[in-house]
């Protein structure tokens, strides 16, 4: 009766989803709000891979799928693909990011200074067991460890009077790019004189198929929405030595970007809001044989340091690399697509009994040539040559 279990059609689908909802409990607005507020890095990851900046919808997607990230990303992508393009924002320059964290591993100090910002990098990775004890207060709650968004500052200060995280003198909101200094000194090739960018004319990987070699826009867009685990796995293979390059983190930056639009009638630029953005630049010497530094770049919506570091290394290696798969654009970009790779992986759950029967037929006939016995499992068709199937008479 196994095949019957795979049938049953619409009723079975309905019951299966009902069972899932029953098992995992109902979701409501409070849960969605809570996810959005307390799991920002999870929300960021889903928004980045879903390539849709909508924290509330991403939190809803996470809640609705019980935290199955591939399902959550698919929900967001499927919603995104139904949305019209209303306008194109103006390009965001790194120098314009309202920066909360910006570090360089290449120099001890950099123009503007190293800004450690919100990070668990140097925290002790010890579970805060006391959080689990009822009625215990005093220790900082996870909420207090979460990064502040600009709007939070006044609110928190208002609640507590004086916020210990507020410095006496505010740090500058924006910083120059580290690469700008290297360009000044000739270590990195100067930026080409770019025409003013027409955002609407940029190649868009969500509106046209990717072909290889890919336009740089397609490559960076693909990396931006790539699977975090996927880019990490492939980049890590190159870090360990499969097609080794020696990247140095020139700059890693987390910040808020102003989304600037132009009013369609007046032409006046205005801010439509801010998004969390992260980007990374890595450099390697002797890129393509030149006595210069080669630059790898990646940026994504939301704060996701592992992803942008891995992706920027892959960008560098795809540019300068060998024939190693981790250096090949098609290999890297096609295999780090979260929706396509996860979808195809789980499609193997679908019935394949027609194709499997076809394989068994070939296998048995080839086997019968070796043994000289009937290819049928029943042994009842030994008198019939398998090659005469479907023969015209």
């Amino acid at each position, binding site marked *: 009766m196994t095949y019957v279990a*795979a*049938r*049953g*059609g*619409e009723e*079975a*689908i309905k019951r299966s989803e009902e069972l899932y909802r029953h098992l995992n409990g109902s979701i409501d607005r409070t849960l969605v709000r809570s996810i959005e507020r307390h799991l920002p890095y999870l929300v960021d990851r889903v928004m980045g891979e879903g390539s849709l900046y909508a924290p509330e919808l991403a939190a809803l997607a996470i809640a609705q799928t019980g935290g199955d990230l591939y399902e959550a990303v*698919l*929900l967001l992508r*499927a919603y*995104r*693909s*139904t949305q*019209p393009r209303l306008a194109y924002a103006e390009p965001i320059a790194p120098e314009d990011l309202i920066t909360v964290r910006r570090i360089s591993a290449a120099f001890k100090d950099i123009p503007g200074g190293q800004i450690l910002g919100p990070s668990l990098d140097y925290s002790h990775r010890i579970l805060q067991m006391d959080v689990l004890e009822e009625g215990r207060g005093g220790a900082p709650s996870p909420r207090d460890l979460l990064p502040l968004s600009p709007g939070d500052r006044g609110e928190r200060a208002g609640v507590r009077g004086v916020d210990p995280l507020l410095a006496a003198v505010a740090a500058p909101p924006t910083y120059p790019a580290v690469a700008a200094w290297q360009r000044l000194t000739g270590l990195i090739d100067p930026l080409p004189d770019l025409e003013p960018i027409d955002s609407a004319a940029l190649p868009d990987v969500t*509106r*046209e*198929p*990717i*072909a*290889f*070699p890919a336009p740089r826009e397609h490559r960076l867009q693909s990396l931006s929405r790539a699977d975090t685990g996927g880019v990490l796995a492939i980049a890590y293979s190159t870090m360990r030595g499969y097609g080794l390059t020696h990247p140095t983190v020139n700059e890693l930056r987390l910040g808020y970007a102003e989304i600037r639009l132009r009013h369609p009638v007046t032409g006046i630029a205005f801010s439509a809001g801010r998004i969390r953005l992260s980007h990374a630049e890595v450099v390697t010497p002797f890129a393509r044989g030149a006595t210069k530094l080669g630059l790898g770049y990646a940026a994504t919506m939301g704060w996701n340091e592992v992803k942008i570091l891995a992706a920027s290394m892959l960008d560098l290696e795809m540019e300068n690399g060998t024939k190693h798969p981790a250096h*090949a654009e098609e290999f890297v970009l096609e295999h780090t697509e979260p*929706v*396509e790779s*996860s*979808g*195809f992986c*789980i*499609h193997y759950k*679908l*019935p*394949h*009994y*027609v*194709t499997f*029967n*076809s*394989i*068994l*037929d*070939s*296998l048995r*006939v*080839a086997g019968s040539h070796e043994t000289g016995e009937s*290819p*049928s*499992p*029943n042994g*009842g*068709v030994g008198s*019939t*040559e*398998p*090659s*005469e*199937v*479907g*023969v*015209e*008479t």
Partner: protein
Amino acid sequence: MTLADLAFPPQDYSYAFLDDFAKRELRRRILKAVAIPGYQVPYASREMPMARGWGTGGLQVTLSIVGPRDVVKVIDQGDDASVNAANLRSFIARMAGVRTTTDALEATIIQSRHRIPEERLGERQVLVLQVPDPEPLRQVEANMSLAREMHAEADYARMWLGLYEQLVRYKEYTGGADYPVVVNGRYLMNPSPIPRWDNPKLHQAAHLTLLSAGREKRLYAVPPYTDVYPIEFDDVPFRVENQDGHVCRLTGVTQKFLTEIPQADGRALYEISDTDYGAKVVARERGEPRTIGATYYDDEGRFYHAGYLKRRAR
């Protein structure tokens, strides 16, 4: 009269889900695919509200050609009741407001995974096949940029070599489903993972076949009355799956594509894969009026284009 009277009532989604820009792109690509039989046309491939690899390519093609007067049939492994077929069918019906059917003769659009119905399709019908992998050259060339060049130059030498190696090693073509075909004497094409039994049905067919891979972002077509031949050597003809001695345990049907049902005692029984065809046969035996169309293979297993399947000399 007010503006509200003139305006179209607001809807959550566009007709047939896809927005007009996506539909226009798909229709243009389909026209190109029909104009160059067997050639893989790249397209943007939108994310659909189901997982990639679950028929999103076929679904996009169906949604871009469907209209309110169409009648849609969806099958998976030949079965209308398979869960994913049911899911796709209910989505198409919900988004396009079309009538659905299980009858292969009645449908104007048939979306299918892994099968072509046993009854012959006609000129007014479109078969949409879901494609996991559009590239037949992948078994000899993993790099798709190079594979495209090979197609452009009609350089299929490595495929023929692979076929020869199969014969040397196993005295048999070892391909299962998705057996590559040459379309219109030019492009090598994956027919989607239909069994070899279904490959001949594409040759000089009355209906239009559209094949679409959502994940790989390629669609292609076999227009009506186009030559489609499996890759085979002259002296070792291609063969379809053996059906001799197999009898459907539910319907008594023979010489149609039957799938194997393992039994606890080590034997195997067989069941018709095209479930609606089986249901028709049962209904007719009960004396119910059901029209059964002419089939591609007759009850003796003879294919309707005489001479297409050749006897193998031994």
